[in-house]
């Protein structure tokens, strides 16, 4: 059984920096961050069909500064639209770990919230937030473009007020997320991204970054090999 740990631990608000100029700078960066969101849509589910009208002339996301991007390196938001099969989830996690922080995950449709109509499926991951730190859910089967845009506006508000820091949770409680991933994918699960090393590099180490699951990871981890060149 997957341990049912509440996902969003009440996060300590970052203390305001005392230097007034630094504070102004932080506010400016938060504002710029909220007004410019590059979106990577992982469209394997039916919710993807609601995104084209949200992006094109009917509702036009670009007026909110949201535009689609095509690679995880460039993106800020990972939109997971619809049901997540176990095979898909591996790709989503690989994609998420390649994104540069601050990054946000949005689960669209009921399937990402609780499995939706795939609740009884053996091959579907039920709750996305057990495997990734989800910032926002947009429920509905499927949510209309208005709902998608109002959800994105909620995210924009959160970012503007510095409340959308769930990406730090992935580093600080990596052991928890990794444990759930190992439960689903088996003990040999590993990703090319060195999350623990990144947490160390950027000072995002938390009390639960390391644990029994990361020990298991280290014991099975194979070093990355460059791909063999074949013609």
């Amino acid at each position, binding site marked *: 059984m997957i341990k049912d740990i509440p996902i969003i631990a009440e996060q300590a608000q970052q203390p305001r920096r005392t230097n007034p100029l630094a504070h102004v700078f932080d506010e*400016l*960066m938060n*504002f*710029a*961050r909220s*007004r*410019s969101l590059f979106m990577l849509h992982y469209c394997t589910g039916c919710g993807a069909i609601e995104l084209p009208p949200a992006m*094109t*002339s009917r509702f*036009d996301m*670009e*007026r909110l*500064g949201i535009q689609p*991007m*095509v*690679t*995880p*390196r*460039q993106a*800020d938001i990972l939109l997971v639209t619809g049901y997540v099969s176990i095979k898909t989830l591996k790709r989503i996690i690989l994609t998420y770990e*390649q*994104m*540069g*922080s*601050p990054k946000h995950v949005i689960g669209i449709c009921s399937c990402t919230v609780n499995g939706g109509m795939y609740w009884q499926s053996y091959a579907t991951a039920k709750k996305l937030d057990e495997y990734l730190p989800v910032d926002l859910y947009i429920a509905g089967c499927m949510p209309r473009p208005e709902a998608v845009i109002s959800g994105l506006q909620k995210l924009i508000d959160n970012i503007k007020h510095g409340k959308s820091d769930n990406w730090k949770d992935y580093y600080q409680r990596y052991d928890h997320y990794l444990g759930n991933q190992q439960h689903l994918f088996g003990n040999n699960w590993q990703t090319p991204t060195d999350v623990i090393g*990144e947490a160390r*590099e*950027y000072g995002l180490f938390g009390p639960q970054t390391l644990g029994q699951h990361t020990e298991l990871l280290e014991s099975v981890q194979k070093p990355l090999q*460059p791909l063999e060149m074949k013609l």
Partner: protein
Amino acid sequence: MDALHILIELTLMPLVAFVVGLFMVLMMRRIAARIQRRVGPPLLQPLYDILKLYGKQTQISHGILHDIGIIMAVGGYIAAETMLPVPGMNGIADKAGLITLAYVLMVPSLGLALGVGQCANPNGSIGISRALTAMLAYDIPFVIVIFGVAWQAGSNNLVDIIALQQVDGIASWGIVQTPLLAFAGLFALHAILGKHPFEIYIAPAEIATGPMVEMGGKYLGGLFVMQCFQLYTAGVIYTSLFLGGGENWLTFLVKSFAVVAVPICIAYLFPRFRTEDVVRLVWKWPVMLGLIGIAFVMN
């Protein structure tokens, strides 16, 4: 005093280019939005994008060449801005000729090739090979055009070329004197900007933005800054060569924005060519028109 004056100009000219370039990017995105019947981004959107990208908290570098490549890409354009005369500031434009300018304009593509090579992403490698192929395609008509203009003016100095065009009002503009060269130049300019239908190396749906595929955070921010410079450079070169430069800032900005708007208005109506089609098209029509134009000029 003179050295100080030059130093101030060398600092101001890239800054002005960046600010004007931001508005050109905004204009490009607004035009695209209007053509697609959308509202488009707000006024400061290009600035927000760049601020956000530089404010990313984790950066993924693929090695030293990756870093140097971006610096070369932006630096090449910054060097080019100091050779483009604007009203009131000549910078080093009267010392550096058109040939130096054409040479410096190749540096960004080569820098990108260096940086992308180290990313070891196959999409990036395809993208950069296409970008260099496109450069090979558009540089031929571009060189023909600047040769024709330099021959017409009897000088390869942009300051002289602009001064010569401002003698007699519109009648002495390059676009009136040498219309064939001007048309070939506009064609080459469209290819230099790399917009549809010449967008072979970005191609988001095909090779995932090509050279930009592994760029995130400040690397992508550098490329966004480069895009501002690229639009500005293209607009100002064409204005200087064919539209009589700028008598004052108002006419200068109007002309530069109008020049950039022409290819962009065309761009968003078209899909993308294949690489070999781009080379074939660009080596055929603008080169032919440019050579006929040169024949008229040298006659």
